[in-house]
């Protein structure tokens, strides 16, 4: 059952790809969209049946030369298969209306991208994993480059993405190849039983951590993410940001917790540390970002950071403890929740982009009356992303905080120093996330339009709204009834589930109860009671329209509104030392006198500091090396012959000395 569902999901995706290449263009977006959604739905079913206890393994020796393809589905992989499938359903339905103008190759690549993402968590050998990984990188790269002809930045973003993802691939390849060589086989079963020296295990873990973390957008390997995710078409952004980055977390959990079977505590402190750093840095950049999709991209870095805090805590507590189970459950639940709200947010951002032609929050606003459905859907996503009740982000962050808080008495001095700091980091990132999404929603959708694009916006077609609505329904389900998915998630670990209960979630092994339904219900009840009381006691009920308070200076224009930049200004000042914003004032005097100013140009920009400090020197150095190497090749044949002669002589001398 599990296997046939999974194979059917892959088959539907591949058939859709072929169909997309042959059907006429007016039918293409419908075929690819519904095909992708169908493949995704089968993926969800396959993942769910794995979590319900179904197992499946397959060995296809003839598919790949030399190694063959070995697939197997276990609960850890099943979760990621189901999440990928769920995102694909929403993005597929959305693409029916959104991707009409896209080219043939771009549309045909979409189902293939989904298939490769389904393949990665089902891989059971190193070579299958690597092939799936590379297929995923190539298809997503093609999709990122979809609009390269329209905007120059797309090409640059694609280049960054291609380089970073392949460097990551090299790290994973090196780590896993080393692992497989030491274990004497490349099947995951053989790797599990391998006995490596501690130093070799460290090398394997750190190499794969670097590779997988770069895919998850973890600081300092995140630089591609806020470039590539915004430039991709929005349904692709959703797939990348909500499904693809998860596989980086999957890789870390698979190699670290499963194949290597845990390790020394410092491994997991490293994971926890980079997770905390990513959470803070990501949300801080998001808080001051004015590009809606770039903001969402940075928020992905933040959320993956939070997930890694959970994974790191789980590894730190050691396998078998109740706290480790709780931390891992929290991390995986956060993966699921993040997939839900980030799909919704990216799809809504795409809806805004389609309607207004801009992603710049400073030019948006007033969409509340022009795009009512998109506004409500984005509001739901923003509530979930800011980890406030009754959103779904709140539940997983609460679980994560509980696992960290209960660790204090038992985890020694390292834990006593780490855990409070981790709680502080999570709290600060939650607070900044609130500010970020108030900015994104309040400035982007409320008040009056700040630009002509926003002024002439119209609501998106029904298929796009249906895709967004599906994601919103998933978010609502996860927010109000997390008990519907929690038993499935706890199948990842042997032993009792970390969280139990239906209406109120109870923690296993430690004290703690939360009831998302009760919180939402009492809020609704309170609002109803207040409305009833107001109706009862207020004597004049008809609302009257009135002018805004304009200090008596005449009607206000849209230029007087607060923008996203001005909204984030206090935060930018508070975190001045971390963000290091750049501003540029350029005064042009009139020709006759230096004292009369003709024009003042002010430019402010907040560069990604890690990119600025870490990558730009390296890139500049590489460029300098390349330029100086040019001197060697000046086109003279004599010189090249001389190089050959010297190289041969040198090689002979070396050989003579060594022999």
């Amino acid at each position, binding site marked *: 059952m599990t296997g046939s569902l999974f194979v059917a999901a892959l088959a539907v995706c591949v058939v859709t790809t072929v169909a997309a290449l042959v059907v006429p263009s007016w039918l293409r977006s419908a075929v690819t969209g519904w095909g992708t959604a169908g493949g995704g739905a089968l993926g969800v079913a396959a993942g769910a049946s794995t979590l319900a206890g179904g197992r499946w393994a397959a060995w296809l020796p003839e598919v790949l030369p030399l190694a063959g393809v070995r697939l197997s589905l276990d609960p850890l992989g099943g979760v990621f298969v189901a999440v990928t499938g769920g995102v694909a359903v929403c993005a597929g339905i959305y693409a029916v209306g959104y991707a009409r103008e896209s080219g043939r190759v771009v549309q045909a690549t979409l189902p293939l991208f989904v298939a490769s993402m389904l393949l990665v968590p089902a891989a059971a050998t190193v070579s299958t994993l690597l092939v799936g990984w590379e297929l995923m990188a190539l298809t997503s790269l093609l999709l990122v480059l979809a609009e390269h002809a329209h905007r120059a930045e797309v090409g640059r973003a694609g280049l960054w993405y291609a380089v970073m993802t392949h460097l990551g691939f090299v790290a994973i390849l090196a780590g896993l190849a080393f692992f497989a060589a030491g274990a004497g086989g490349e099947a995951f079963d053989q790797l599990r039983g391998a006995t490596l020296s501690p130093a070799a295990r460290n090398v394997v873990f750190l190499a794969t951590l670097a590779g997988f973390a770069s895919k998850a957008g973890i600081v300092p390997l995140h630089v591609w993410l806020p470039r590539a995710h915004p430039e991709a078409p929005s349904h692709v952004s959703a797939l990348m940001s909500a499904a693809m980055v998860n596989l980086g977390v999957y890789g870390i959990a698979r190699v670290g917790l499963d194949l290597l079977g845990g390790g020394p505590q410092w491994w997991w402190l490293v994971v926890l540390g980079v997770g905390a750093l990513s959470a803070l840095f990501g949300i801080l950049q998001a808080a001051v970002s004015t590009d809606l999709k770039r903001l969402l991209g940075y928020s992905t870095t933040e959320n993956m950071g939070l997930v890694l805090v959970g994974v790191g805590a789980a590894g730190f507590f050691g396998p078998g403890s109740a706290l480790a189970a709780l931390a891992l459950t929290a991390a995986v639940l956060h993966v699921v929740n993040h997939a839900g709200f980030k799909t919704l947010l990216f799809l809504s951002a795409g809806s805004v982009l389609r309607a207004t032609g801009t992603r710049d929050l400073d030019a948006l606003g007033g969409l509340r009356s022009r795009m009512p459905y998109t506004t409500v859907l984005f509001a739901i996503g923003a509530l979930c992303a800011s980890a406030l009740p009754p959103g779904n982000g709140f539940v997983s962050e609460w679980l994560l905080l509980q696992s960290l808080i209960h660790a204090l008495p038992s985890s020694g001095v390292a834990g006593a120093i780490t855990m409070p700091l981790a709680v*502080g980091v999570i709290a600060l990132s939650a607070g900044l996330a609130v500010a970020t999404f108030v900015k994104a929603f309040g400035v982007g959708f409320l008040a009056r339009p700040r630009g002509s694009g926003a002024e002439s916006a119209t609501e998106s077609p029904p298929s796009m709204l249906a895709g967004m609505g599906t994601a919103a329904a998933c978010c609502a389900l996860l927010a109000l009834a997390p008990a519907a998915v929690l038993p499935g998630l706890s199948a990842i670990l042997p032993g009792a589930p970390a969280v139990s209960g239906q209406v109120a979630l109870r923690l296993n092994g430690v004290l703690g109860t939360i009831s998302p339904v009760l919180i939402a219900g009492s809020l609704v009840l*309170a609002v109803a009671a207040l409305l009833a009381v107001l109706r009862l006691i207020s004597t004049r009920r008809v609302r009257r329209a009135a002018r*805004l308070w304009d200090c008596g200076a005449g009607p206000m224009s849209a230029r007087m509104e607060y923008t996203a930049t001005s909204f984030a*200004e206090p935060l930018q000042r508070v975190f001045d030392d971390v963000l290091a914003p750049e501003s540029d004032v350029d005064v042009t005097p009139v020709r006759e006198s230096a004292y009369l100013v003709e024009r003042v140009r002010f430019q402010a920009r907040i560069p990604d500091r890690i990119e600025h400090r870490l990558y730009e020197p390296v890139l500049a150095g590489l460029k300098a090396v390349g330029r100086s190497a040019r001197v060697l090749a000046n086109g003279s044949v004599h010189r090249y012959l001389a190089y050959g002669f010297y190289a041969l002589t040198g090689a002979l001398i070396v050989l003579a000395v060594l022999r």
Partner: protein
Amino acid sequence: MTPLLQVILVVLGAPLLVGMMRQVRARLEGRAGAGVLQPWRDLRKLVRKQPITPDGTGWVFRMAPLVLAATALVAAAAVPLVSTESMAGVSDLFAVVALLALGSVTLALGGLDTGTAFGGMGASREMTVLALVEPTILVSVFALSVRADSTDLGAIVGYTAEQPLTVVSPVSLLAAAALAIVTIAETGRIPVDNPATHLELTMIHEAMILEYAGPDLALIEWASAARLSVLLGLLASLFAPWGIVTAGAGVVAVLVAMVVLVVKVAVLGALLAAGEVFMAKLRLFRIPELLAGSFVMALLAVAASFFLA
């Protein structure tokens, strides 16, 4: 039953607390003052006025006061003020903090929805303060929860009531100082915000609600008062839980607990108001320093709970 009693107590008492604090300030500043009942008179006046929809505002603007007041009501029911018997599943300290933050968020969105510079300015400042307050609250909660091994407020208060000596431990004192500072920040009192000002350079809360009038404003004013009383009551319960009843207490005990709660909150409110007389509002960009200081105290409280245990 007691959650309902607490709600009634907060609904009726919150405006009186504000009136009492204003009266204390007035007397200390040498003015006669308007009397303790003045906030209730203001609310009555506001409710009778016609509701107003400023041009260009929408459903977010209209929903904000309702949601803000609803979060205050739920928080009043969830926090153990009279009894440690609390709403299981809601009375978690993280949940209460997040609920109050939800109220601030909706109000900030209401401010942004007006599209005026005042609304945006207030919203931006409020969100900045909220983001910086969050770490302190959660880390001091961490410090307090270690003893009771739970973040449930009922459990923490119950533990402290059983072991009164823990109140004078370094953990409690540091956490109390940290929580007191963030309570001031959350409720917009001096030195973080001045509830009596309408000067644009310094406003935070008042700037956000500038466009509200009539019953909407009444709801906001009431909700602000309720948040202040719930947070002061929470401080009292966490650090002076005497008089609070446990589950299954008799009617007399509950009545006594209510009186004790009123006295404790009144004393705290009077102290806060008296302190405000001697202090000036901080510059907006000095507030982070104050909050960073409170965060350090919270962190020290956690360290103390581990290393001094």
